[in-house]
């Protein structure tokens, strides 16, 4: 009996937010991210029999997603390269410049900050995974989606004071977890 079992019907609820944020950091395009995650789930199902149970489900899904992201960049890069060489740099004199244009701008500090913030997002989601599932769900609805109190109370069939107690517990647990893992 392996240590970790696969439970595909729970994948979307458990991991889709994490996978989505993970992908958005790397491809910066919602539609592409959605496609990649969809492909990842399907590929994971196909290769479910090769899952040995040594890693956690999420780690395993992330490793598949990584391959998908790499494949995506391979595909668009080969396309981009061809188009630019042909259109803009036809003469010998300018040859090679298009390559330089592909290099990241070192002085673009904001991109790096952005990256760190996104990593922070993953750390937060990571911590949310470790707390009570229902609390995490309500916290996400309230804090990230910004849904108002009344709507959440109706959705989960709880009273406002229930809600504030849940929010309090979630925030306390989350703060403790972040303190341990992020700072």
């Amino acid at each position, binding site marked *: 009996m392996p240590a970790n079992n696969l439970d595909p019907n729970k994948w*979307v609820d458990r991991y889709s937010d994490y996978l989505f944020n993970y992908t*958005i950091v790397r491809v910066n395009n919602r539609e592409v991210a959605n496609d990649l995650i969809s492909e990842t789930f399907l590929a994971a199902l196909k290769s479910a029999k090769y899952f040995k149970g040594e890693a956690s489900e999420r780690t395993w899904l992330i490793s598949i997603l990584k391959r998908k992201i790499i494949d995506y960049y391979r595909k668009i890069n080969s396309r981009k390269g061809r188009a630019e060489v042909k259109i803009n740099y036809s003469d010998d004199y300018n040859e090679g410049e298009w390559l330089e244009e592909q290099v990241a701008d070192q002085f673009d500090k904001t991109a790096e900050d952005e990256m760190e913030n996104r990593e922070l997002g993953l750390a937060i989601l990571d911590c949310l995974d470790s707390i009570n599932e229902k609390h995490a769900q309500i916290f996400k609805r309230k804090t990230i989606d910004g849904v108002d109190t009344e709507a959440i109370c109706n959705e989960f069939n709880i009273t406002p004071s229930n809600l*504030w107690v849940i929010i309090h517990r979630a*925030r306390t647990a989350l703060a403790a977890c972040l303190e341990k893992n992020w700072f």
Partner: protein
Amino acid sequence: MSGKIKFFFIDCSYAAECCNKSQYEEASLLEKAKLMMHLAICKTCRKISAKNSKLTHLVKQSKIEICPEENKQQWREEIKKEFAEDRSQT
């Protein structure tokens, strides 16, 4: 007089509730005032309150996105379908 004073003094759990509400801009003016009074006399709650604000700031800064429910639903169906097919083959 003592009744009026009591009115403004709240315990830590109520202070925590006010503190959480104010993180979502949902505390009433009275709740905010009571919270301020409490924070003035309670060091533990001051610490917790500072942490709480920091958490709000971090969550905002992180720009976490929750993927839209329609996508999730679509994925759920895809997985269900594939999973059922896999099962029937084996």
